[in-house]
């Protein structure tokens, strides 16, 4: 078997094992209602993590997504409160801004040859600062269209609800899978993560791919911001602090190599679901504090990084 699939298989195995453990303690965990909520509650994180997966596959990192989510939320709330624009056109505008913002960061990373870490750190400050400038208070969103959107859901057997934002996340994952594994852009992304000199020699348009990847991440962060505003019905500049770390953790737990070049979109989805599962378990239990989530996620991160190191070591020895 191709060792590339091993981290993905490990992720899936851990997810199934964790779910089985939860199920043995609380049989209700397997109800469609819990599964539906798992998708709804983690929709914004999942969407952002898909964008992050593309960035990490090229060997980069995007620290700005949490701030972009907050900015998009505040932007939408402010526009809806002060103008008579239709939410759909506000969404389009928000996505345009976040995509351009990502593209700009990609452009800076490429032309200035600077580490993505520090460029997107500046982006993180800038987006959060702009959100603060728009409003420091939490602005409620009360628009009829929002109520309509929030009422869109499919009833699945067992009283579960597949909400619109859950559906958006699933669609995003599918688009991500197709984009990564079935298009030319996807192979450019993997090539770039495999090594810059090699990618250049193969004729990968490095500049375009870099800009596109960060633009895509910006777009996903914007979409995630829209979903987040639907989820919370408000725009708040202090929202979504640290989501970038959760997204990175989800990507790593999903089996994507942080050095780039190897990983699967579907793994990221499972990574997000594992993190959601830990939180759901803690809510079900009721006696555990929420900070156990952080410790468990830290432990999982460590396990997966160790697993990846082991794999790299084994495959490099096999080649010799």
């Amino acid at each position, binding site marked *: 078997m191709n060792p590339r699939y091993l981290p993905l298989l490990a992720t899936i195995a851990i997810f199934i094992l964790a779910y089985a453990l939860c199920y043995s303690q609380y049989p209700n965990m397997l109800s469609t209602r819990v599964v539906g909520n798992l998708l709804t509650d983690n929709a914004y994180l999942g969407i952002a993590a898909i964008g992050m997966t593309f960035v990490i596959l090229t060997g980069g*990192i995007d620290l700005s997504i949490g701030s972009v989510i907050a900015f998009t939320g505040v932007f939408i709330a402010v526009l809806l409160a002060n103008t008579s624009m239709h939410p759909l056109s506000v969404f389009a505008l928000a996505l345009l801004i976040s995509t351009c913002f990502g593209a700009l960061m990609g452009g*800076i990373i490429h*032309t*200035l*040859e*600077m*580490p993505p*870490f*520090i*460029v997107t*750190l*500046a*982006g*993180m*400050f*800038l987006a*959060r*600062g*702009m959100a*603060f*400038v728009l409003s*420091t208070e939490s602005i409620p969103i009360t628009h009829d269209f929002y109520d309509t959107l929030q009422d869109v859901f499919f009833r699945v057997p067992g009283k579960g609800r597949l909400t619109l934002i859950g559906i958006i996340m699933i669609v995003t994952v599918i688009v991500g899978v197709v984009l990564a594994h079935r298009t030319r852009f996807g192979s450019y992304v993997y090539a770039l993560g495999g090594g810059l000199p090699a990618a250049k020699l193969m004729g990968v348009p490095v500049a375009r791919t870099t800009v596109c990847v960060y633009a895509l991440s910006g777009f996903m962060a914007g979409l995630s911001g829209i979903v987040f505003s639907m989820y919370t019905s408000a725009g708040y*500049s202090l929202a979504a602090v640290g989501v970038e*770390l959760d997204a*990175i*953790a989800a990507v*790593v737990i999903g089996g994507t190599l*942080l*050095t780039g070049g190897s990983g699967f979109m579907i793994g990221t989805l499972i990574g997000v679901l594992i993190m959601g599962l830990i939180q759901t378990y803690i809510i079900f239990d009721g006696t555990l*504090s929420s*900070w*156990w*989530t*952080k*410790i468990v*996620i*830290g*432990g999982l*991160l*460590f396990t997966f*990084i*160790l697993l990846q*190191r082991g794999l790299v070591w084994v495959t490099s020895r096999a080649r010799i």
Partner: protein
Amino acid sequence: MMNRLHPALRRILPQLITLVVVLGCNVLVFPDFFKIEMSNGRLYGSIIDILNRGAPVALLAIGMTLVIATKGIDLSVGAVMAICGAVAAAAVAGGSDVATAVVLALCAGIVCGLWNGFLVAVLNIQPIVATLILMVAGRGVAQLITEGVILTFTNEGLIFLGSGSLMALPMPFLIWLGFGVMTAIVVRKTALGLLIEAVGINLRASTLSGVRGNVLIVAVYAISGLCAATAGIIVAADIKGADANNAGLWLELDAILAVVIGGTSLLGGRFTLAGSLIGAMIIQSINTGILLSGFPPEFNLIIKAFIILVILIIQSPIVQSVLFAMRMPPDLSNDDAEPVEGGSARDRDASAQKEGMAP
């Protein structure tokens, strides 16, 4: 004129100019900025405030400089601050004296640093990822120690470290200054600094030439943990309590920013401690200036973003090569005392260090 300055001073000249400009802006918006008064045997004033409030970032920047010089990064310092603050608070709340509490907290910081160093040096994990683990899990551990509440304490000795004063100067300032001077002496008056830079430039080459690179890497992360522990104690002592959620939140980013403003390259291989400390003071001066000017503090982040952008542009290879081309003067041949700026800066630093190293 430039070449009459001491090389060390010339190297941090851009940072000093930035600091003066920022302070100048502060005077414009707040004429009494430089006013210092004495009351209750202690100095008060905006400048003193900057030196005092900048202590956590300055302390973190010392450790971060060394880590970045080895081509690493330490994202966990904020979480380590929370852990160590919690350890100190829990120790005094449990009835032990100040010295024991401080020693326990410092040990906790060193253990965190050793863990990071172990992941980076022994398991060969990328520094960003390796320290991310503790960044994510660390606050959970701190919550575990404080048992989910803000652990307050009334121990006079510990509070003194955060808000007391010695010789009319605030303790936090004296602590970071002492720490900075000590570290600078240790790394620059011995070969240690040179070896750290060597590891940052090429770990494999320096290992092959007999430098124990892995030991050095573990050591710099341990020092970073120690700095974070000290910063954590100061922050906890300042608010008379350990707040596991908010102590040191996002300070790792400020510390990295201070190091980058200070002129240390994120690509490793050269560092300046004085620059990083000035960088920390620049950040604090901007914070204080914005507060004094009556601007909403929200603008802080935007200004920081633009500062990073400007520094990135200046440090970028393209601009560097343009500057290098511009500074290739025709009088290169007759001015042999002045090496060409930019390209040979590293050689000059290296020779400066060698002078310092000589017994």
